């Protein structure tokens, strides 16, 4: 048996630490978070293009993320189209342009309300569930177990979920828009009479390439943001069940804010490009 002497404690000092010590704590944390999430996003890209590709898990996540959100998106889309039409009707009648109601509703839904509302619903459902799922996997060491099992957990858990979220949201928005227009058609017919053919002809005749393309493109960014934020918050959550709750909550808040910021940026771009 051998016994060694007690160790001496060595004071901690890192030359990398000192500049940030002069910044206010909240601002320093904001900068640290921004840096970490940027690296996390970059890592998602770099890992996503490297083999081995987790195709089976990607397909499973597409099914879970896309299919599980379909009912909610359909319901909210339908109500949104119906309510929007009923709310707009009195003003349109006052201005004597009630016949343009399908055009007005169609443009509003396709250009802005459909993508943004669907993305917010998607963020509420997916960012929170992904954040909580990965957070609890981290707390219970399942992510470590995955790594020990010869799996790159970042690729298996993060890349697949980010890719699935990016791929599924545009499809959900397309379906949501269609169902919203269905709701709008019913809304138009509550106090008026318009055939389905006439309603959709009016909507489609009005919509141009510049209405559809930017709206469609921004949904990819929305989906990517929801996926990255949900995974980031879960994957980097602090230990304990409280951390899991915080991860789910902050994932929804941050991804919702990012949806509006992305929307704002896309509007500026399309304005500069003359697509508005």
């Amino acid at each position, binding site marked *: *048996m*051998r*016994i060694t002497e*007690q*160790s001496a*404690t060595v004071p901690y000092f890192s030359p990398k630490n000192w500049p940030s010590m002069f910044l206010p704590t909240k601002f320093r944390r904001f900068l640290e978070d921004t840096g970490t999430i940027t690296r996390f996003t970059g890592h998602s890209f770099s890992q996503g293009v490297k083999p081995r590709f987790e195709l089976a898990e990607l397909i499973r996540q597409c099914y879970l993320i896309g299919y599980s959100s379909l009912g909610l998106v359909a319901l909210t889309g339908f109500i949104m189209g119906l309510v929007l039409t009923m709310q707009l009707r009195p003003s349109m009648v006052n201005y004597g342009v009630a016949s343009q109601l399908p055009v007005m509703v169609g443009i509003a839904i396709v250009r802005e309300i459909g993508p943004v509302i669907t993305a917010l619903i998607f963020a509420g459902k997916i960012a929170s569930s992904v954040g909580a799922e990965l957070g609890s996997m981290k707390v*219970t060491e399942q992510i470590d*177990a995955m790594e020990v*099992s*010869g799996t790159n957990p970042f690729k298996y858990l993060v890349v697949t979920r980010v890719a699935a979220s990016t791929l599924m949201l545009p499809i959900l928005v397309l379906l949501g828009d269609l169902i919203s227009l269905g709701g709008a058609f019913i809304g138009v017919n509550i106090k008026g009479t318009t055939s389905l053919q006439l309603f959709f002809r009016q909507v489609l005749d009005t919509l141009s390439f510049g209405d559809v393309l930017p709206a469609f493109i921004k949904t990819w960014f929305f989906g990517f943001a929801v996926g990255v934020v949900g995974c980031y918050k879960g994957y980097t959550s602090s230990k304990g069940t409280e951390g899991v709750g915080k991860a789910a909550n902050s994932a929804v808040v941050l991804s919702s804010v990012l949806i509006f910021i992305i929307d704002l940026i896309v509007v500026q771009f399309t304005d500069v490009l003359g697509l508005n």
Partner: protein
Amino acid sequence: MQTAEQTISSAAAKRDPGVSNPSGEPVIVIRHLSKRFGPNIVLNDFSLTVGKEENVVVMGKSGAGKSVLIKCIIGLLKPDSGELLVFGQDIPQLDHEELDRVRARVGFLFQSNALYDSMTVRKNLEFPLRRHWFSITQKEVDDMVMEVLENVGLADTVDKLPEELSGGMRKRIALARTLILKPEIILYDEPTTGLDPVTGKEISLLILEMQKKYHTASIIISHDMHCVKLTADKVSLLMDGKCYAEGTYAQLERSTDLNIKQFFE
């Protein structure tokens, strides 16, 4: 019929001849390992050697750095300095592929079991097999799954989810998942923590049984003295980041050093 206590005593007697496994060539060599998290020094000049088919128990107070040690060994954490050789390969210097090849030979039983919640027992066991052995057929996978499940006495749970199992059963399934790759080294992170004394003893005996069957070397993190007595060829006491004391269970038990005695009282 032997009681659990008698079984432990006889097993411990067989395993404690006064010297640790002398024939085992080292499969793990740790020299002057240090690891800190910010200002907290967790490991400070820690050294340990584990021979082939040798069971080493690492004891220490909560937060002493025992789990950090085995996470460094498996490559989940990177030490700040020191040498960490597993099968002669310096773990901190390995790239991902090389590390995966080493990990295929090293099992890790997590304290929380770390069973995948969304997968059945079968899928949990298949997961590491599919990841490490690409050319394996479904028939071979099924056979290996059933073999390890039978070894841990839970063949009938194959299609259950982890949430449907008791704490002891989960621990057994986690052990089965660790064993399925037939590792040469197993790292146990507090295998009996959170279990009742009877189940804890069953798990300790199972560890010993599996060690004999698969001829593994082990590092067992534990402060369950029944488990330590039963399984240890050698005990290392981790204190202030260093290996404070090392010897057989009997040697440490006889020690008059107060820091050592407190663990055996």
